[in-house]
């Protein structure tokens, strides 16, 4: 646990010093929100379902940029090999990278959400507490799946192209559930109406987190 925390702290410090992943995620998220806002005719009322779709398009595409970079720092000078030579277990490394991805996604969302509420209506703002729960579950699921595939593709030459090709088809059910749950929350539905979506999202996250820990030893060692 301690070694994993050291890796998390190192990655957060490195990102603070040179915020490559965060800038890419925020820029892409902002750009998508603005483009979609321009595409919607003026005066058109955004339905809860459409609002949910727009929000998750921005979050999903900005997240994949961050996930793709989660092993970039370990590639320079073969630092990943340095970590694997240390007493840090492969499971600890997976857990650390998943936690870092989760934190980066959460920080990006903290910046993307205000712009979303400004552009698409502050009526959605009242849904924030329930939305936070959906974001937490979706972030964990994204981070588990994304870290797993980022680790698998870390050694590949063109992993920037490979990661989305592997990641998106698998994470599609999670995105669909997040959009559904968010749409219902924006429409003012009570928790029991969308709790089944949250339960399936939690199950998805648990399955891919468990899978990541189970296979990390095989991913990181030849």
């Amino acid at each position, binding site marked *: 646990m301690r070694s994993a925390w050291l890796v998390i702290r190192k990655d957060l410090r490195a990102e603070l010093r040179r915020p490559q992943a965060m800038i890419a995620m925020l820029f892409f998220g902002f750009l998508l929100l603005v483009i979609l806002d321009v595409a919607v005719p003026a005066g058109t009322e955004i339905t809860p379902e459409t609002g949910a779709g727009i929000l998750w398009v921005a979050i999903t595409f900005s997240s994949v940029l961050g996930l793709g970079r989660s092993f970039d720092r370990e590639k320079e000078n073969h*630092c990943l*090999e340095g970590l694997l030579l240390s*007493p840090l277990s492969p499971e600890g490394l997976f857990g650390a990278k998943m936690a870092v991805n989760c934190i980066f996604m959460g920080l990006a969302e903290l910046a993307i959400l205000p712009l979303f509420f400004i552009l698409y209506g502050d009526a959605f703002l009242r849904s924030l507490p329930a939305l936070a729960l959906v974001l937490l579950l979706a972030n964990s699921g994204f981070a588990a799946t994304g870290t797993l595939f980022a680790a698998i593709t870390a050694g590949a030459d063109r992993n920037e192209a490979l990661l989305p090709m592997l990641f998106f088809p698998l994470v599609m059910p999670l995105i669909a559930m997040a959009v559904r749950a968010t749409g219902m929350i924006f429409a003012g539905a009570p928790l029991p109406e969308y709790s089944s979506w949250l339960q399936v999202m939690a199950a998805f996250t648990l399955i891919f987190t468990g899978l990541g820990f189970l296979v990390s030893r095989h991913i990181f060692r030849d």
Partner: protein
Amino acid sequence: MAADDYLEVSGLCKEYEGCRALRDLSFRLARGDFLTLFGPNGAGKSTLLRIIATLTAPDSGRVRVDGADLEDGSEEFRKRLGFISHHALLYDQMSALENLVFSASLYGVADPGARAEELLAQVDLQLHRHRLAGTFSRGMRQRLSIARALVNDPDLLLLDEPFTGLDRQAALLLGELLLVLKERRRTIIMVTHDLDRGLAMASRVGILAGGRLAFLEPRHRIDAAAFAGLYLATINGETS
């Protein structure tokens, strides 16, 4: 495993896409042995080091260190392992001190800051402790990389072509550090093509060819000139 054996390699086999890197490789080392392994390119030297370092899993065979199978407690074993490879294993965006403190912390060193300062002094980089590793010259990076590998004061040190590409100062420094470690009875396996340096430091000398140990003898039984001839004949036999 005999009572004084520290490292036991038995029946190691490894194949990469149809190419057999190691074929039933077995040998034993006592604590404090310094084994220099020579061999032509592709003989399986790096694969052997990577398997002992737990970076690569063998297809069959096993490695035991201090009586324990590596499969059972490789995390515990890696606390006592040092590895100097072709790669610097340094974070360019971290200072020299931060790189060493991070590594020392990962290895659970009691006072990472003090250990990092001690190593920076040993490799003559204490005046550059706050400079980013990415701004270092090649020689400085090599010295920092050596310090990084020694951060946990390893019981077992693996060196993969450690002198290749080193500048004169870094090579001298590495030679001195290795002699100190040898005197302190650290077990060392060095893979090299450098006959002079390899023979000068070794207590045991081996030749790996075609994934097999073609030769393994204590250093005192070897005549340097005769060994050079044998080594050349082995390389020529491999390449012809």
